[in-house]
């Protein structure tokens, strides 16, 4: 019997909130490798932002030891997956490192769009799937309905799906037994040529980049020279080991195993997710399939706020990039906001996470501009430009046409919300491809929609119209010509480049009016009237005015309480620091991101 028979490599796949992280915690606790007292809630989600949002962005992987009822000791490698549509590629690579997956379905909610999306990704990697019904401790659990949904929608036999509660620990042992039975052991040749899949990496200031890997064939140890088959770079291995969690050195990693490799690698971009590691002196014939360079879907400008140093922002962005191959940036100069960076993200969540980390981990004060997608601008001379910054859009006279990215959006919803979702999607220029009843009460809507319409507040709008019951999954489909124009915003008759957007021509009027109204709320009164105008080219299409204020005076004398007066003035001054000066107009920094959150009920 081979050592491989006692290894199981698996992922947990679930919709957000369905309890994936809690289950992972429980497994770690059960298998005794982390003392209960060291357990932070949800051990695997170790970034504060992840824990707060209940989502996983950076992967964690953990080696568990489990003594099964058959008396054998098993090594269970739990490979985490990020739980958000922005990170589908990362999910697929994590799954590729596994031989099976535990599908967690919330017994109170049933199957959701993302569950299905992740199941398909798992099927694409040929994984055995073990469905599990979670949250069975709740009174609202409907295991029979959930089982029926798994069978009807996903097509898996759920009759023997373990019923568990990750929260209370109920049913976990049975689940582990079932896991060993259902998920096959890895296969591979420890004496073959090294083929190891990178499914994640992160930067450690002492060890350099730490690569999480699954060895498919061969073995690797300290002192070996490894080669990244797609980027062609060589590194000397300084350490290999297991993630228990954390990093625990080992002599070698061999076929079927999951662990980490360090090699004085300076940034994660040099150890890209999906790349194949081999030995430089005895390379494998071909890399593992499925490598893809991460592509930014959403861009925005990040500028130092008043009083913040450009260098600080640059340092922070560089540090973030070291750990995030999907994040990229380049210098940008805005007439309104000065020197800053144009940053590319996988999606809106990715963008949120990065900007939040800038504030939290680096204590930076930055202004983020409106997110934008990448437009393909086909010029009259035939040249095609990629434009992700509205300010860079060439003059209309030179443009033959513009193409915008279209995504395939799958929305799963209880049937009573179909009407309002259809209205929402229609207003967002969505085009319904088809609709199917998955069960009597659950419907899946398939739309094609401009990405531009999805990135602002579509998800929030969807949630609010369906009381949180609808779920969304989307992926890039194609570029498609569209009638688009650049909408400029002028404050006190001066165009503010950072507020320009690219919008569909037919919506320019409504958008322009909405932005002007919003700015009117956000911009404080000045000592003079501030006209706010929206324009297409030279044509003004909407206008609002911030009335002049006439009074900012404390007439009362507070019996010599100068300190109180001073505090008021200091507060006023501090408030002004959060503002940005454009000529003589002062604009609060949040204006740049708030302005398109047009809660217009669309």
């Amino acid at each position, binding site marked *: 019997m081979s050592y491989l028979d006692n290894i199981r490599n698996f992922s947990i796949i679930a919709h957000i909130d369905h309890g994936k992280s809690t289950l992972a915690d429980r497994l770690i606790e059960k298998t005794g490798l982390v003392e209960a007292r060291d357990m932070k809630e949800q051990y695997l989600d170790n970034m504060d932002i992840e824990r707060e949002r209940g989502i996983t962005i950076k992967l964690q992987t953990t080696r568990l030891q489990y003594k099964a009822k058959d008396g054998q000791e098993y090594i269970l490698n739990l490979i985490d997956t990020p739980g958000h549509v922005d990170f589908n590629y990362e999910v697929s690579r994590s799954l590729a490192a596994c031989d099976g997956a535990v599908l967690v379905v919330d017994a109170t909610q049933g199957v959701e769009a993302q569950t299905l999306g992740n199941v398909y990704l798992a099927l694409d990697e040929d994984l055995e799937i073990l469905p599990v019904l979670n949250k069975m401790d709740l009174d609202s659990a409907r295991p029979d309905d959930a089982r029926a949904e798994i069978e009807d929608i996903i097509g898996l036999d759920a009759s023997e799906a373990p019923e568990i509660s990750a929260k209370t620990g109920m049913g976990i042992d049975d689940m582990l037994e079932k896991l060993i039975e259902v998920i096959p052991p890895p296969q591979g040749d420890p004496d073959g040529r090294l083929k190891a899949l990178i499914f994640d990496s992160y930067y450690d200031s002492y060890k350099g980049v730490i690569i999480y890997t699954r060895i498919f064939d061969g073995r690797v140890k300290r002192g070996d020279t490894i080669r990244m088959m797609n980027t062609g770079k060589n590194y000397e291995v300084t350490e290999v080991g297991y993630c228990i969690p954390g990093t625990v050195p080992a002599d070698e990693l061999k076929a079927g195993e999951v662990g980490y490799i360090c090699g004085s690698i300076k940034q994660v971009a040099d150890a890209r997710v999906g790349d194949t590691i081999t030995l430089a002196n005895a390379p494998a014939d071909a890399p593992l399939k499925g490598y893809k360079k991460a592509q930014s879907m959403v861009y925005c400008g990040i500028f130092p706020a008043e009083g913040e140093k450009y260098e600080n922002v640059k340092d922070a962005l560089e540090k973030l990039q070291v750990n995030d191959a999907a994040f990229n940036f380049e210098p940008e100069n805005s007439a309104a906001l000065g020197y800053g960076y144009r940053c590319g993200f996988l999606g809106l969540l990715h963008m949120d996470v990065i900007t939040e980390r800038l504030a939290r981990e680096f204590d930076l004060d930055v202004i983020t501009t409106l997110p934008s997608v990448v437009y393909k601008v086909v010029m009259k001379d035939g040249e095609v430009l990629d434009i992700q910054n509205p300010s860079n859009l060439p003059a209309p006279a030179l443009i033959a046409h513009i193409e915008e990215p279209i995504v395939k959006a799958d929305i799963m919803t209880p049937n009573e919300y179909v009407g309002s979702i259809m209205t929402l999607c229609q207003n967002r220029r969505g085009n319904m491809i088809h609709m199917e009843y998955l069960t009597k009460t659950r419907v899946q809507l398939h739309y094609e929609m401009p990405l531009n319409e999805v990135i602002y507040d579509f998800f929030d709008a969807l949630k609010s119209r369906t009381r949180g019951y609808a779920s969304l999954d989307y992926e890039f489909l194609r570029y498609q010509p569209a009638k688009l124009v650049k909408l400029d915003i002028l404050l006190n008759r001066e165009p503010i480049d950072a507020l320009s957007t690219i919008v569909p021509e037919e919506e320019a009027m409504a958008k322009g009016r909405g932005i002007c109204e919003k700015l009117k709320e956000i911009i404080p009164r000045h000592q003079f009237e501030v006209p706010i105008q929206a324009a297409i080219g030279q044509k003004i299409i909407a206008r609002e005015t911030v009335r002049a204020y006439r009074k900012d005076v404390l007439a009362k*004398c507070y019996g010599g309480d100068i300190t109180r007066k001073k505090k008021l003035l200091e507060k006023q001054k501090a408030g002004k620091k959060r503002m940005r000066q454009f000529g003589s107009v002062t604009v609060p920094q949040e204006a740049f991101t708030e302005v398109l959150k047009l809660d217009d009920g669309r």
Partner: protein
Amino acid sequence: MTADRMNKKRGIYIHMPFCVQKCRYCAFLSFTAEGSPRKEYTDALEKEIKLRAALERDNGTDRPIDTIYIGGGTPSVMDISSMSEMVKTLKRSFDVKPDAEFTLEANPATLGRKDGVMLAKLQAYRFMGINRFSMGVQSMDNDRLHFLGRIHTAENVARDMDIIRRKGFDNVNLDLMFSVPGESGDDALSDLEKILSFKPEHISCYSLQIEEGTAFGRMAESGELTEVPDEEDRDTYHRICRRLRDAGYEHYEISNFARKGDDPDSPSPYRSRHNSLYWNMDEYIGLGLGASGFINGIRYKNTTDLGEYLAALGEGRLPVAEEHKNTAFDNISEAVFSGLRRSEGIRYEDAVRAYMEADDSGGDSTAATDAGAVFWEIFAEAEKEASEYAKRGLLVIDNEGLKLTEQGIDISNSIMSLFV
């Protein structure tokens, strides 16, 4: 102590936190007089007076007192007997200059219902040395007075003023409030005319501010009450300023006006000497609940908790809740923003002197040859915006210093906040 500090004037502020009833706009620290421990309070005050005086003597920092101001609340609701004892203690404890300005805040209709009582009370105040009254008139319209929650009528004001004058008090301030919800500019000007008919030596005019935690604050929140629009408020303010100038009053501070003396070219003798201490970075000892003081380079504020105040003094300790030793920057910043309230504005020389007075300035004022240069070095960050305000005619910047224009007053906070 630097030599400069020796030249400062010094005043005493005493807080009396009791009123007949709380006005509906009032956010000041005050209690309903009836049933409050007024006697215990003045006893405690006497202890505080003695402790402060002893402390100053022990430090060798005691100096003659130029002004005394008893404010509130409504000091005139205090028993004359205990007031008299308290003032005696005050005068025994501090070296009060013979020509000191001694103000009592009084509300109409609180000085005695019967003429005889009021005359006798005023006599008692005179014995105490009080030589200036500040009356919270606020309005001369009975409906509006009622709306504000005041306890007096326009007739009470006329009668009180008559007796005060008969008694020979020749330095009286009347407070006028404008921009009361529902009040027009014309209403305010008509109030002003009635107030002018008493020929007060001093008039304070301020617009009603609706503050959180007051009855008006709650009414504004529920929409029962609508604030007078800023445009209207400022228009009324400037009309009042014009009218008072025409009537021979000097507009010497944002909300304060003093009747001109015999020589119309020199500053009015009726300016509030006490309030001027605040605007000039002079010293004042604050006594009583929640009172603020600024002496020997230290700003302090007493506790605002009445129980704690009484307890502290019962145990023989000062009831100070906050204390802050001013830095050089604190000094110059305060000198600028409080000095800008005066129509004269500030002189670089005085501001820089305030800066040098602080122990951490590391210099002495004699070394400063060009005060303007030093000033703008300290406020280099503010210079650009300040000159923009100057360009717009809101601020005057010259070789001597800065001052707000009458238009600049309207947005004085924005200008002042450049210097904090």
